């Protein structure tokens, strides 16, 4: 059995979910290869070679991989697929976009968002916003899988010394042009991998009030997240969204402020180690999952909390 992990990276460095995906591959067992498709991505390929447990890195360089499209990644993956029993991608925006395209081109089903490996063909994945866990068995000879990062402890980023081999990608079909990316500029840790997350909901009432969370997040070196309600109301951009259809997080500390706790939101954060809820409604469902609930007016509590953290 040989497993191909398709790395997510920004050409300079690997995204953290790549390490969790390698960890899932280790649970499956067999030789692990990592594919780094990028432009001037030598450093990302070197980083992949250092991951403990990786046997080989395939490095594909092309200008159209500077901001890779699903079409480009899928064409490349399919051209390399023959020797592999499993193809794994992180269940991030990148992996969710590309993986089903790879699976369909190989005429195999995809197992999405696995949180545990039972055997080489059997996996556990959440369904219905995490309200049920399904154990599923893939009958296809080749398995295309996306991996939920919070389900697997990251593989060590160092200790490996894999060989890096260049592979040549198929020509770009050129039907999709990436016109540009607007990335939220932030010095904060990445939401999906932050140790502490401070999230706000509709209780914050408007986008201006969301800024109150910044001072608190600064004190805790936290990422800032939001409920779907806050995104729907236009308080913050969509990439802040934690939940079933947003990001799945499992930090050491999750602080939910003005969030009622709809099942769609709980799906994205209930695996956090410690959950704090601050809400004026004592009946809010968020308190049922919170280790420490504080009932009260968030507009009074946030400044107090920020001051206490001094």
């Amino acid at each position, binding site marked *: 059995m040989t497993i191909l992990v398709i790395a997510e990276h920004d050409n300079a460095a690997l995204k953290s979910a790549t390490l969790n995906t390698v960890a899932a591959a280790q649970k499956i067992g067999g030789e692990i290869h990592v594919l780094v498709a990028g432009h001037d991505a030598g450093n990302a390929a070197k980083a992949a070679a250092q991951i403990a447990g990786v046997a080989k890195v395939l490095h594909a360089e092309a200008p159209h991989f500077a901001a890779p*499209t*699903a079409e480009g990644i899928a064409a490349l993956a399919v051209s390399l697929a023959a020797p592999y029993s499993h193809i794994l991608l992180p269940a991030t*925006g*990148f992996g969710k*976009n*590309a*993986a*089903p*395209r790879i*699976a*369909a081109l190989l*005429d*195999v*089903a*995809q197992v*999405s968002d696995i949180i545990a490996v039972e055997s080489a063909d059997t996996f556990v994945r*959440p*369904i*219905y*916003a*995490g*309200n*049920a*866990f399904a*154990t*599923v*068995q*893939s*009958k296809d000879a080749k398995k295309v899988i996306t991996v939920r990062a919070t389900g697997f402890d990251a593989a060590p980023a160092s200790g490996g010394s894999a060989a890096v081999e260049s592979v040549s990608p198929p020509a770009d079909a050129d*039907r*999709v*042009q990436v*016109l*540009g*990316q*607007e*990335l939220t500029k932030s010095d904060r840790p*990445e939401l999906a991998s932050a140790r502490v997350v401070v999230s706000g909901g509709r209780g914050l009432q408007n986008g201006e009030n969301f800024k109150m969370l910044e001072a608190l997040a600064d004190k805790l070196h936290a990422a800032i997240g939001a409920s779907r309600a806050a*995104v729907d109301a236009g308080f913050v*951009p*969509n*990439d802040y*969204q934690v939940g079933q259809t947003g*990001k799945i997080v499992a930090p050491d*500390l999750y602080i939910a402020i003005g969030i009622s706790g709809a099942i*769609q939101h709980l799906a994205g954060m209930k695996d956090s*180690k410690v*959950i704090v809820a601050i809400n004026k409604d004592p009946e809010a469902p968020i*308190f049922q*999952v*919170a280790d*420490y*609930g*504080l009932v009260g007016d968030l507009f009074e*509590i946030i400044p*107090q*909390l920020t*001051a*206490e*953290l001094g």
Partner: protein
Amino acid sequence: MKVLVAVKRVVDFNVKVRVKPDGSGVDTANVKMSMNPFDEIAVEEAVRLKEKGIATEIVVVSCGIAACQETLRTALALGADRAILVESGAELQPLAVAKLLKAIAAKESPQLVIMGKQAIDDDANQTGQMLAALLDWPQATFASKVDIADGKATVKREIDGGLETLAMSLPALITTDLRLNEPRYATLPNIMKAKKKPLEVVTPETLGVDVAPRIATLKVVEPPKRKGGGKVADAKELVAKLRNEAKVI
């Protein structure tokens, strides 16, 4: 330009599902069913394209049991022109649905397919990308803004950390994300009118598609329960507990 919209009938997003005691799945008997919320956004986007004079006809498709006709009628009431049900009592997994939709697309020759990014029951997030691959069309997943002009689609899409703008030639496939639009409600006169709109029923067999599942569900269980409900009196006690008891700060 003809637009094809795919919709799925799912357990309503407000329902908290229960796992069956025998572990064979979740209980969907006597549970409120609705159109998948992301598919409502897909229908709305198609209707807006028609209102702008860009789309000329909206064909809405669903795959599943006869009751999916209700979901299709909802889409017709929202502004779709006609509907196709691929009727099957079998478990239809994303790859099978993508193949069925490919067969429908081959008959209908739409310039654009719009569908939800993910169904809120199986949370697979696969079918749109699979259909795009099978049709060999470009894809724009997780769309938050769509502009169609001169045979091209320009799509802003949600990515981790921000937004990405793609330009692609038509025909193309788009999957919807939350911020794309806010779906309208069907009005009573439109619900009445929808009853008279054409709804065709076909089967996987007549389309020549093998829908046999490739993934077997061995068991379904409740997730581990989290023990919550602890309370603190004020910010001071909270910080003390986080420092000394939970030791996370």
